[in-house]
């Protein structure tokens, strides 16, 4: 007769093995993406479309208390290389309580007919809700979404719109580059992380025809596709992930344009960073609960894209699982019932993981930084371990909070990311 301790140990051991297997899958994924970027065929099929009968575009600039940065963004948009008669810039001033409205209105007067502001004074908070309300004023076939702190280069709108000539493409995504990378250690670490995420992850997905992700800003969306999937959802915290999967399930692809680069600000303090991660976690997990099964059944998605799509949905679930794995290991140690994890097997597993598994994420970031032509910032790579730890704890906390919110039917709260740029400072 097995004792309670033996049964518990067996259960914990099974959980641990499943978690280890998942970690290995994600490790392999890091390697596949990085090796693809280093040695594979790179796909940039739409980047050479420089001349075309361009569609009418509305650029939505989401702004909530953005008096410090909105002017730079709108001025840059007035200078972009896109036919003026086909471009409308619409700042979506979402219930701002600072001078955002004043700044926008002064620019409207300076550029008559080119900026059509939408001043939103009420309604549900959050970017998706604001964009949803703005859609009724959009004229044209394509919308481009920017955050108020983004400063586009001259050719960016054309490059973002070009893939939408493909009738299968519903959205495009450009690359965001931290503009305040030099501010402190956190921004430098986030610069490395972003580099890995875009230069390797997103581009590898594009190369391998998997699931590049729409990131919510520096991206274009086909209005017809957006309407076909029911428009923006205001009840989600990660409208970007949500949109990516709804488009995918309806047979629309998202294209990543690695050479469409645009500056953004990254958090400069750890509390702001933690809040950002927690918001992303809740939004991303909601998408995971909503779309995992539908993705598996979709006739529009290839097997490889289904696997990638599922792994992408599960990214934020891995942190609490990893913590659970640690807890299982400790419990098994004290229960002294871990035959599979003893002796030579354990030694080899530890050695293999230390040599390869732990290294995968760093390998990815290192490769990305090298591709960007940077060198000495790679010295900071070991410090990313601390960034990962903070992320892991924040994500786990957010996941637990989300379950509690779900239990008590509490509504999820939008949390705006702090801006740091000084008024008038150029990006």
């Amino acid at each position, binding site marked *: 007769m097995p004792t309670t301790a033996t049964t518990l140990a067996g259960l914990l051991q099974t959980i641990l093995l499943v978690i280890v297997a998942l970690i290995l899958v994600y490790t392999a994924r890091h390697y596949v993406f990085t090796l693809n970027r280093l040695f594979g065929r790179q796909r940039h099929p739409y980047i050479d479309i420089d001349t075309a*009968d361009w569609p009418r575009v509305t650029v939505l600039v989401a702004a909530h208390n953005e008096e410090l940065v909105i002017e730079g963004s709108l001025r840059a948009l007035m200078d972009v290389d896109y036919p003026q008669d086909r471009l409308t810039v619409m700042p979506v001033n979402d219930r701002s309580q600072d001078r955002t409205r004043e700044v926008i209105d002064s620019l409207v007067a300076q550029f008559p007919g080119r900026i059509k502001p939408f001043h939103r004074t009420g309604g549900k908070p959050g970017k998706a809700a604001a964009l949803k309300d703005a859609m009724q004023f959009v004229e044209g076939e394509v919308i481009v979404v920017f955050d108020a702190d983004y400063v586009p*280069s001259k050719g960016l709108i054309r490059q973002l719109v070009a893939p939408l000539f*493909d009738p*299968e493409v519903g959205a495009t995504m450009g690359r965001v580059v931290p503009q305040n990378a030099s501010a402190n250690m956190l921004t430098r670490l986030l610069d490395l992380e972003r580099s890995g995420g875009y230069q390797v992850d997103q581009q590898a997905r594009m190369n391998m025809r998997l699931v590049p992700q729409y990131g919510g800003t520096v991206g274009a969306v086909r209005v017809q596709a957006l309407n076909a999937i029911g428009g923006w959802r205001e009840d989600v915290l990660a409208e970007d992930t949500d949109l990516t999967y709804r488009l995918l399930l309806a*047979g629309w692809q998202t294209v990543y344009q690695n050479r469409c680069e645009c500056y953004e600000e990254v958090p400069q303090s750890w509390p702001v960073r933690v809040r950002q991660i927690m918001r992303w976690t809740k939004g991303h997990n909601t998408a995971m609960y909503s779309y995992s099964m539908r993705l598996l059944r979709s006739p529009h998605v290839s097997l490889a894209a289904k696997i990638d799509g599922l792994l992408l949905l599960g990214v934020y679930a891995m942190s609490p699982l990893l913590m659970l794995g640690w807890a299982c290991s400790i419990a098994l140690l004290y229960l002294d019932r871990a035959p599979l994890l003893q002796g030579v097997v354990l030694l080899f597993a530890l050695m293999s993981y230390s040599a390869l598994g732990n290294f995968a994420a760093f390998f990815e970031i290192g490769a990305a930084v090298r591709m960007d032509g940077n*060198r000495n*910032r790679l010295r900071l790579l*070991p410090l990313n371990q601390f960034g990962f730890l903070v992320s892991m704890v924040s994500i786990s906390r957010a996941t637990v909070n989300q379950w509690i919110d779900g239990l008590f039917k509490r509504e999820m709260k939008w949390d705006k990311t702090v801006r740091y740029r000084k008024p008038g400072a150029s990006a």
Partner: protein
Amino acid sequence: MTAVLFSGALLLALIGLALLPSLLELRRPTDVEPLRVPKDHDNHVFRFAASYRTRLESVFGAPLQRSLADGAAAQRAREHGMTLVDASASSDPDWSQPLACAGVLSIPAGTDVPQEIYAASELRIGRASIVRAALSDGVATLHRDACVTRWLHARRVRLDTGSRVQARVSADESIELAPGVELLRSHAPVVRVAGTAPASAQAPDSASESMPRYAGELGSGDARKASSQWDAAGGRWIVFQDMRLAPRTRVCGHLIVRGDAHLGAGSRVEGSLKVHGRLTMDEGVRVDGACVAACDARIGAASRIAGPLVCEGRLEMHGATTVGDPARLTSVTGEEVLMHGGACVHGTVWGKSWVRTL
């Protein structure tokens, strides 16, 4: 106790050693600048030609054709390390210097011109000459086996057989390509390969209302698994397998084929076309929107595509194929682009590896 303390200190030292480069970089940053995103980047083919013209105009004044004829132009040229070539003079200028010419500039056969040059009127680049970059306000002709290594811009450009432009060539009016030319990126309201289409090739029928309409694919095997689907919200047909469109059939809406596609002669897509596999168009096919092929594509003679035309493999455009419209310029891009005699593009032709004419 000592052993424990020693072990602890050793452990801390080892961890510290691993973090030492990071800590040094944090204390004395050497690589902190954000990745450079050029604000003025616009990706235009004539970017270099435009900036060269601006440089010349800052020296001589605008417009160049008139300012170069001015008596003081030679002096200004010397001050800026340039040679002003007198078109009427019989002397051979120093071709290794940056040159500007108020009239017709003829580069003798076999000459190496390593600097940028400007001709206010006609520019003739002799047989087997190599020119780095050239700007002309007249007609620029590359004679047989001549080569431009960086860029060439003129009012009109003619490339003779065997000539090459290794980077970009653009024109305000037209680029005429002889068979056997190789280039990379070209742009003009008309980019045409000399020659005609096969006599059998028939242009697309402009009145297609009488053509039978495409009504989806018949599924094979499991009848519950449809092999095509009409997506009403997106206004597009999605075909989940290889597809063969019968001749003179019309597809109302966009068409997405997730396999190979073969479009029969005289068929028409009243929207855009996307093919995941190999695309084959017979003669006289018409596509009213863009055409995107994820593998190789063969465009049959006398076909018409509104554009853009994007091919991730080898793109072959047969005679009298037309892409774009003089009033609506567009882009043709492919890994390798082969243009047969009579093929014409209104806008940009860009081969990632090469564009060749036959």
